[in-house]
């Protein structure tokens, strides 16, 4: 690889050319990249540095104050003792897990079903990917209306006779409050309290907030098409000869998928999970438009926390601290991914 690079940057017609131009050509490629690199270093790395400094500073009001806060890291300490921040971390975690499972598995299923190339598969593929082209704000507004507890989905349940069936069997009608419901499903606080005493008294319930479910559905609606497109692209690189060879070896259609295609798609799953995972750690617009912080911070996430603290409460150091944690979480996912995909070349 080194040799190849060296050959490439040496002018082929160097013999006939003065040496000075040859040297110029060596510095020209980095020189052309300089504006972009300076912009990137200033606007990304220097700015991140400033944000980290702000998160450690006394700048907690409208008046700018870059002096460091004593003791060191006090803002972080305060943030990590806020119940709202606990709820945010829980929500990000639960949202990421549910959203990744939903969008990746459904995306894979759709890609496999479309792979049968039945009638209308091109139109269907376009329909499934269509939401990706929309703004999160549009998605949030549409799904807020659909999950309005007085209408939308709940009305559909009524219309389909589901509630009639449940009440005739003596049960209460199924009418969740969705985005207005502050309760948390499968709370594990008591159970965790056995291992870590004190957890059972935490103000935040560790479980699945009901109000978060509609947000997960909306996010899956928007981004399942992305994972489907990734899988379709991945499957198009698997040659027909390979499938044919498996068929000749006696595999049936089902086995071709489970034994040949699925293992070859594993790298696609990793890339998709990383890209969608980092989207979900950063999620802001969708929740902002759909539910905001939600009842009892049931749908609050770090992205909204940063926005509220920085631009509404003008607690700049607190907002900056939360954004640094967001950056840290995203980096945990992205840096190894970039490292491994760029090293291969």
């Amino acid at each position: 690889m080194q040799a190849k690079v060296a050959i490439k940057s040496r002018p082929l017609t160097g013999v006939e050319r003065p040496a000075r131009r040859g040297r110029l050509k060596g510095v020209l490629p980095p020189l052309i990249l300089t504006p972009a690199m300076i912009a990137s270093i200033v606007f990304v790395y220097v700015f991140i540095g400033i944000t980290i400094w702000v998160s450690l500073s006394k700048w907690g009001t409208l008046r700018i104050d870059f002096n460091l806060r004593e003791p060191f890291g006090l803002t972080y300490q305060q943030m990590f003792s806020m119940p709202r921040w606990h709820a945010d971390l829980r929500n990000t975690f639960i949202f990421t897990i549910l959203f990744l499972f939903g969008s990746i598995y459904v995306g894979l299923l759709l890609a496999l079903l479309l792979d049968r190339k039945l009638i209308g598969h091109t139109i269907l593929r376009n329909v499934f990917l269509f939401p990706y082209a929309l703004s999160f704000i549009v998605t949030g507004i549409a799904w807020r209306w659909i999950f309005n507890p007085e209408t939308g989905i709940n009305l559909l349940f009524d219309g389909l006779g589901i509630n009639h069936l449940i009440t005739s069997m003596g049960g209460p009608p199924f009418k969740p409050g969705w985005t207005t419901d502050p309760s948390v499903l499968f709370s594990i606080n008591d159970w965790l309290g056995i291992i870590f005493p004190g957890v059972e008294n935490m103000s935040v319930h560790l479980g699945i907030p009901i109000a978060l479910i509609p947000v997960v559905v909306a996010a899956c609606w928007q981004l399942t098409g992305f994972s489907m497109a990734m899988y379709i692209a991945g499957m198009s690189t698997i040659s027909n000869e390979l499938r044919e060879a498996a068929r000749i070896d006696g595999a049936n259609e089902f086995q071709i998928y489970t034994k040949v295609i699925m293992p070859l798609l594993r790298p696609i799953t990793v890339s998709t999970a990383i890209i969608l995972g980092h989207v979900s750690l950063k999620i802001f617009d969708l929740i902002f438009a759909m539910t905001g912080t939600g009842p009892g911070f049931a749908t609050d996430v770090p992205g909204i926390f940063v926005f509220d603290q920085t631009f509404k409460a003008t607690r700049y150091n607190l907002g900056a601290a939360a954004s640094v944690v967001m950056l840290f979480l995203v980096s945990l996912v992205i840096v190894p991914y970039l490292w491994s995909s760029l090293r291969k070349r």
Partner: protein
Amino acid sequence: MSTVTASPFYSLRQALPKRFWDYAVLAVLLGFMLFFLMPVYVMVVTGLKEARNVSLSTMWNLPQQLSGGGFVEAWHRLVPNLGNSLMLAIPATILSAVWGSINGYIFAKWRFRGCNLLFGILVFGMFIPYQSILIPLIQFLQQVKLYGTIPGLITVHVIYGIAITSLIFRNYYANIPDELMEAARIDGAGIIRIYTDVMLPLSMPGFVVVGIFQFTNIWNDFLFGVTILPNPAAQPVTVALNNLSGSFSVDWNVVMAGAVVAALPTALVYIFLGRFFVRGLLAGSVKG
């Protein structure tokens, strides 16, 4: 073969006609199609209703009579912001595409020691949560008197767009054979002449892909728009739409119609140029 016939799935498959499975697959796909089109149906149908006909109990019904519904008011309210979004997205898309093309050309064809590291440093910028640079960014824009202006927001989108546009162009140029370049080089063309005479004429598909991708990204942006442009008259359409849906004086039919209006440009781009859109999507996932 023994394992094959032992599979319960296989015997079931044999028992039923081949057609059955095709119909089953189609039925599942059709179910998903209904799910994916449901929000579109709700937005369009609610938007077409008159305010007095929007009620919670008839949400899924079609409008009683055909009229402009909420679209008239939504259009009236959002049209200045649609203009802002266009004035923002078009120049920002063009500038970041051109800049990205130049960088991508160097990264793909003039590799030098350490260029992979530089590329990694550059590309990391597209993954960061922008919340983590907003405070210094706003301070900076205030210093250079660009805060609260559309040119300011264009600058921001161009700068934070270089990473993705350079990435897509690098992957695009990597597929152009080196032999084309070598031929020009033997004819005495330098790094710049090769770009303008050889690469640029071949770049049209790359520009379409990057253009569509960036236009969609910038059009759909909300965070930069809401934090950098506090003046409602200058805000892009996503921010205006969110304000519309948050105000209590506005009816649901207007909000839904507004969502359709705000989504229309990117939806049209997707419908007519979807092929390129998918290519940009996949090229944006780093793989070289």
